[in-house]
């Protein structure tokens, strides 16, 4: 019999985790009360507020797992998990620092030179330095191995040419991690010859232009690189190791609580508003959603525990992301049971605005960070079907 057992162990919590949760909650309650932020649907992608990110940095809530000498606090993956899930549950505007905290920081930590680590990581942890992802291109989305952005060897570094697309938040970032081809395409080895660069977005030859998405927000971007010089010390890892590095990065990207909590604030507000007058049918909808969120959270915490044990749970992470992102879309649909969505954002009441906004952002949930078709392929391979 084929072995298909997936492991979702319990994370090892201690009192400091609960204490941290209380701190984050009371900070968020206080901020919300004072109007420090307006709760947003899909806040980790749509909510860009550098000032808010700096407040979090000042409290030591960014880069918490990193070494102290780089601005971190050497806390566990579970501590970071608690911070991120509380921010998401409150709908706080966290996009500015989100990518750097989640994956670019760990990537830099693992692959950058000492000088780069010393310069960049403390700035990220302080909530002052943000990083965008340079993966997709006009001709390469799910099929990342076909990227055409090229880096050519020159004295002291590389020149970079090409276009990156759909980079969330790049307009407010100082850096982009760019995946580029550093040797000719080899049809026999599609994943070879790719390298990652940490490119300052104020370099000569870089232009960033915003793209409006269907929900009305200009959160993602097209970025052109025209013969941009990148010095050797900004190469991340070894030349040609890009594919392996992004595979590790994607395991971090795919299993976090943002893969099932993007619509949570909408659920929170809708149920708060209807708690006193819930019909039996609406109660069933509410109960069904809560249970699935709890189950997904148990799985996602399990992946965090596996990462903490130093394992590479890429199949488990793909399972969480596939189930979780389809479900956060489904939440928007199921909540229609509480009332029709008839008005564009801005024309309805605050609750309807939030619901419509989340409906209009939902198509991106199952695309970003690897489409669900790609994820199912990873799961199938992990089960020995490919």
């Amino acid at each position, binding site marked *: 019999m084929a072995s298909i057992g997936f492991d979702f162990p319990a994370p090892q919590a201690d009192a400091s985790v609960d204490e941290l949760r209380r701190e984050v909650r009371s900070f968020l309650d206080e901020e919300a009360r004072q109007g420090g932020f307006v709760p947003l649907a899909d806040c980790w992608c749509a909510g860009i507020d550098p000032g808010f990110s700096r407040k979090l940095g000042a409290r030591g809530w960014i880069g918490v797992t990193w070494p102290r000498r780089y601005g971190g606090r050497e806390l566990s993956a579970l501590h970071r998990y608690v911070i991120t899930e509380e921010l998401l549950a409150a709908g706080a505007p966290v996009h500015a620092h989100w990518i750097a905290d989640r994956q670019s920081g760990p990537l830099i930590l693992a692959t950058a030179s000492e000088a780069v680590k010393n310069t960049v990581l403390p700035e990220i942890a302080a909530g002052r330095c943000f990083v965008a992802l340079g993966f997709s291109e006009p001709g390469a989305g799910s099929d990342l191995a076909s990227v055409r952005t090229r880096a050519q060897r020159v004295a002291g570094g590389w020149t970079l040419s090409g276009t990156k697309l759909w980079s969330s938040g790049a307009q407010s970032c100082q850096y982009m991690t760019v995946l580029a081809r550093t040797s000719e395409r080899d049809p026999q080895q599609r994943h070879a010859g790719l390298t990652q660069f940490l490119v300052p977005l104020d370099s000569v030859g870089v232009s960033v232009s915003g793209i409006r998405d269907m929900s009305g927000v200009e959160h993602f971007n097209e970025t052109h690189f025209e013969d941009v010089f990148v010095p050797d010390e900004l190469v991340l890892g070894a030349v040609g190791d890009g594919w392996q590095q992004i595979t590790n990065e994607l395991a971090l990207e795919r299993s976090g609580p943002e893969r099932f909590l993007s619509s949570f604030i909408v659920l929170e507000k809708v149920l708060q508003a209807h708690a*006193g007058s*819930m019909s039996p049918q609406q*109660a069933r909808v509410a109960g069904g959603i*809560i249970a699935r969120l709890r*189950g997904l959270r148990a799985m996602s915490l399990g992946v965090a525990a596996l990462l903490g044990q130093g394992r590479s749970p890429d199949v488990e992470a793909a399972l969480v992301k596939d189930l979780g992102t389809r479900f956060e879309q489904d939440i928007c649909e199921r909540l229609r049971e509480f009332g029709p969505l008839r008005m564009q954002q801005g024309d309805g009441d605050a609750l309807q605005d939030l619901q419509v906004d989340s409906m209009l952002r939902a198509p991106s949930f199952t695309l970003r960070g690897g489409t669900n078709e790609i994820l*199912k392929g990873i799961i199938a391979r992990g089960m020995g*079907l490919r």
Partner: protein
Amino acid sequence: MDETDRIVLDTAERLFSECCDAELVNRAGDGEVPGALMKAVLESGLPLAWVAEEAGGVGGSLALGFNLIRQTGGFALPVPLAETLVANLLLGQAGLALGEGWTGLAYDGGSLPVAADGRVSGVVEGACGVVEAELLVVPVLRDGAVAIAGFEPEAVTARHYRNPAGEARTKLVFDEAVPLCLSAPLTAMSESGLYQFCALVRAAQIAGALDKIVALTVGYVKERQQFGRPLAKFQAIQHKVAEIAGEAALSGASVEQAVRLLSAHGQPFADDPALFRALATAKLLASEAAGPVAREAHQAHGAMGFSFEYPLQQYSRRVWSWREEFGSEFYWSSQLGMAVACGISSGATAKVWDFVSP
């Protein structure tokens, strides 16, 4: 779970593998008594996993018992081991003496029979393990609280039937019946706590069976050749298998989460909101997964999975039966939703988030 627990589970795995194959399960479903399996399981002491060592049991943890129950689900084990485990646990909690062999559980989540003046009256529609039982354990209401009664099977009017999986179930009618033994009212046991505990037992069985359904499906699509290649090489098949693997994993993770919480709590039958949320979640998700996982598994198996001989039906029929017992997904979503509505509107719980995260 500790080292002893692992040894017990390994022993059980070996015993089930040796004594319980697909053919035996089918014959049991047709009414043949699996005598050798019943004898082997009894002699192994597994039914005593939740009985204290002082009382001659294994003294195993809650986690051990629930893992064992999940294992029985993965074998479609045609003996009432899960029910006997629960019945023995109830006898232990009530301070009553254990039976010698199989013990039936006269409880289906419906209204409890009432004990008054030493006699018990009421109806249990879906008692389990009665056919094999030498002793019946009956949770009853005594002075408004839950108490445990023990009965000789002959003392009760019984009508046997089978659930859609072919498992024996029994309607029991207690008409001023005189029990063998009757405990005092148990303060640590609530009716809702008992109900949700039994729901978690079914959820664990479903989780075990869902894992088996996914494993059978993976095995089949890798073997079966069509259009010159294994079914597993078709992307349409890969994606369906990935989806049911996800649903099965979600059920499994929720059961484990509930068992962890129950273990940490210490009072397995308590009426506690945190326990309720975790146990309701486990049964809701397991019941909800039973439909689509079985459907897609059958679709991938083609006509072979529809045949009686091939074992898939043993598991699909079981999850379809178990999803109804001790609360379907409809029941538990309603309960959980009403708890959210009441908690928020009364101010007892500040945020909906508190129902998701501790």
